[in-house]
């Protein structure tokens, strides 16, 4: 997919929700191909939702399959991209917590609280090669609280017009009228502004 290129992503974004909405309509009328394209389009987002909830790769794959299976039963209720994205994010997150709760029950005398979910955010992954600007961004994200890390990680994969719907689905609404920056992006920008490496072009 060529939308790993940021310039392409920006150009494609306004059309992405419109395209997804038409795919939803076709999928509702039984198009396997349209459903498949939606899967390809939104699975990377749901992967980040499942992994940010602390699931292993194998559990994350199971949870995604389950979420997509459930969607098929609910397609008739969903008419636009924002509703679809929010529904999938909510279902994936709920299912991820269900799997984690089941795993916790299997551990004897496990006192782990929800706040102690293993950190899947920046720093816990294998080292990747980063230039100075990326390293500054990574460091700034790491200094945010866990909720903000999760929100930014997830909305970064959402179709742009659906940011507000996704944030609301995650329990962190970012604006009641139109989508606003929200405190997580504002904090991130403040962090970057205070770090000389991060504000350089």
């Amino acid at each position: 997919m060529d939308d790993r290129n940021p310039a392409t992503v920006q150009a494609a974004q306004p059309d992405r929700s419109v395209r997804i909405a038409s795919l939803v309509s076709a999928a509702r009328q039984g198009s396997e191909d349209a459903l498949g394209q939606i899967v390809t389009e939104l699975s990377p987002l749901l992967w980040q939702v499942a992994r940010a909830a602390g699931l292993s790769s194998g559990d994350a794959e199971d949870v995604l399959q389950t979420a997509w299976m459930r969607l098929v039963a609910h397609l008739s209720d969903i008419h636009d991209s924002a509703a679809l994205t929010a529904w999938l994010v909510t279902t994936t997150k709920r299912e991820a917590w269900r799997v984690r709760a089941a795993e916790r029950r299997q551990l004897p005398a496990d006192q782990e609280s929800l706040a102690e979910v293993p950190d899947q955010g920046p720093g816990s992954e294998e080292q990747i090669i980063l230039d100075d600007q990326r390293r500054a961004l990574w460091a700034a994200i790491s200094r945010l609280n866990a909720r903000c890390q999760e929100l930014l990680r997830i909305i970064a994969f959402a179709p742009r017009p659906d940011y507000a719907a996704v944030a609301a689905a995650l329990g962190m609404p970012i604006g009641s009228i139109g989508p606003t920056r929200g405190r997580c992006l504002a904090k991130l920008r403040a962090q970057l502004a205070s770090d000389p490496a991060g504000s350089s072009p």
Partner: protein
Amino acid sequence: MTAPDADRVPSADEPLDEVDFGLLDDIRELFEAADPMPADLPERIRFFLALRDLEIEVARLAAEEDLAAVAVRGAEQSRTITFDSDSLTIMIRIDTNPDGTARVDGWLAPPQRREIEMKTAADSLNVTSDEQGRFAFARVPRGMAQLVVRPADQPDAAGRSVVTPALIL
């Protein structure tokens, strides 16, 4: 990516601007590198959705350690995988035939007669389990596969179909 006014601390209540979108694009790239989704996952999900039923129960891999085995494409040694669903446990043992295809022996618990379909990328194979819940597919092509267990001899019966996640034989 240059802030229009680098000294001003941006407020949370302002609309998203191009700097925010640039940052989100960068964050996406960071996580695509740090925690990439398996590239074939959408394809496996599409495969999985293509055989959905209205009345379907989704089995889960019963043990985490099996996942690693499932991921090993073309492993020579036999391996055993257990799937659990609300109504049924499906255990399969996968062996390698001399010609390289897979032999799959399976057991259903509780034991019962069921129609069992092995769906592969090429086509699907069908067998019926015996009263002890045993079934076998003598030769299955290597690659992606999925089991569908349906009620036997009673298409309108209340029993639900059970599907397993896609696995690599």
